[in-house]
């Protein structure tokens, strides 16, 4: 924030930094950012909810991002989402009630050569089958930490 001279124009950058550190944007963080940059809280909230990249909910212990770009869609991403819904009972954007796994949908990871692609935590996996996906997610679920 200081790098941007505490200017209102640095709002998006500031939110990026907060989300990078805390994993999500809670109300306290939004209040703090808005006050430091001297923008109304409504604007900070507006920006945070406008962009898909920002999330106001804490993420689960693990995240599973399914690419639903065109190439992945054609190569079977909907089947992967069905699998997750069956196994975990969650849809993209939701976290399992035990807080273990968050499922997200991505608008194209740009790894179309690997379609359908899934990002497990931070690692990209290509040509994912519903079976492989289930194995991986079940591992997370059963893993006691």
């Amino acid at each position, binding site marked *: 924030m200081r790098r941007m001279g505490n200017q209102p124009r640095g709002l998006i950058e500031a939110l990026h930094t907060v989300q990078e550190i805390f994993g999500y944007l809670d109300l306290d963080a939004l209040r703090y950012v808005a006050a430091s940059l001297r923008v109304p809280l409504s604007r900070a909230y507006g920006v945070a909810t406008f962009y898909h990249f920002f999330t106001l909910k804490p993420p689960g212990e693990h995240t599973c991002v399914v690419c639903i770009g065109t190439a992945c869609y*054609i190569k079977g991403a909907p089947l992967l989402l069905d699998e997750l819904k069956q196994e975990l009972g969650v849809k993209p954007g939701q976290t399992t009630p035990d807080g273990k796994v968050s499922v997200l949908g991505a608008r194209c990871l740009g790894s179309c050569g690997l*379609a359908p692609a899934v990002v497990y935590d931070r690692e990209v996996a290509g040509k994912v089958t519903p079976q492989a996906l289930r194995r991986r997610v079940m591992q997370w679920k059963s893993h006691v930490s």
Partner: protein
Amino acid sequence: MSPEELEQIVEAERERQAQFKHTVKVCVAAGCVSCQSEGVKSALEKEVSRRHGEAECQVKGVGCMGLCAEGPLVAVGDRALYQHVAEGDAPAILDSLEGPSVDRLNCPTDVPFFQKQQKIVLENSGNIDPERIEDYIAAGGYSALMKVLGEMTPMQVIEEITRSGLRGRGGAGYPTGLKWSTVSKAVGERKYVICNADEGDPGAFMDRSVLESDPHRVLEGMLIAAHAIGASEGYIYVRAEYPLAIKRLRTAIKQAERLGLLGSNISGSRLTFHIDLRLGAGAFVCGEETALIASVEGRRGIPRPRPPYPAQEGLFGEPTLINNVETFANVAPIIRNGGAWYAAIGTEKSKGTKVFALAGSIKNTGLVEVPMGTSLRQIVFEIGGGISEGREFKAVQTGGPSGGCLPAQFLDMPVDYENLAKAGSIMGSGGMIVMDDSSCMVDVARFFMDFCMSESCGKCIPCRAGTYHMHAILDKVTKHLASAHDLSQLEELADLLKNTSLCGLGQSAPNPVMSTLRYFAEEYRAHVEEHRCPAGVCKNGPKDGKQ
């Protein structure tokens, strides 16, 4: 940095390269990185140092080599290209430096995929190390900037770009020379250059690849533009979803600043130019220039009516030049070789080359660069290697959610801005998704409408409500619940959105629907009248008894 100093860097770098007997190049762009190419690179490095051959053999990370489907790719000098390389292959590859190549890894390079391409934007991709500015300079980088600063007036630069016939590669195809001259004539306290790297089209990854493989090329293009229009500040608006591209851009900017290629009084001239990054946050509409400007200013990415165009009133109310990554990437070669050279490539109205990202049901998924006017058949069947798994070609989708689906009858059409528009699609940024007979076109149309619906910023009603309704109807069609009346309403809505939406997102959102209605009417009819999906994708019909 003076031209002489630049020459010294070229000499020094060439000498450095010459001391190595062998060069092993490993692709470190995102496609290959996601198949663990970095592990391959460190395995190769370890193996080289184990053999005490560091002085003889260098292992170099390079940008995208194009054939992303076969990654990780490793090239040994000009002699061989290896595909699907694993860490355990390192000893075999190093053995092959002095002997015959490793047959089981060989990727044939005498095929149309490599032979039929013409590389301008991607000339350095796969050859230079994207994280070393010296490598870019040795490949002729920044010489165009020196030429511009030393020998050309801003007017001459604009004339050269105009002569080249270069058109905006973001999709709309606005003549770049004209845009530059408008901004240069506009009056303002300061002017800005923005590079649009918010590649939002699902299925398009050209810009990302250019940024990851050759970031300095984009900086050089922006610098030349700054000189031409008299700007002092530049921004690159890049998607936050591309961490690798962001990292490489940051490195590149630091390196250019260190050498005095960015900063005050560059090369002793009057040009002062700084570049900063702005991260997008996942909003497709921010590819629209007025929305992008709002986002750079730290606000919600919502477009505003034009005029005034950004060329007059853009970022912070000042004249602003916005071009796409690929457009900027074309600038340096045009200055180096002249506008006439560029204008000799391509068709009458669309000059130069275009990079396409081939994906979907195609054998050679990856990045290709071909002259404008190449036919779809050549791109899909010769270069792309045809449809995968012996299925049948059904359609090719260009331009992402704003483009259309073209059936087989257009395969022999030369690809340029005008022809694609005539056929009901658009050039777009260059994503090309190939579909086979297992895809249902109604389902595809619904998929794109779902995308537009959730990406609509909500400012204007035709787009906000129109995309919602169109999606609802398409959803009904895929569930076999629609009637003929729904189809005619779909067409009416498409017309409404096209003519009354505020920005490009809404205006082009009906394109996938209209093109599929036009070319694949049979499929819609089968869904509506016979309650069946010819491709077998839409199953939730009343006939199946599910739901």
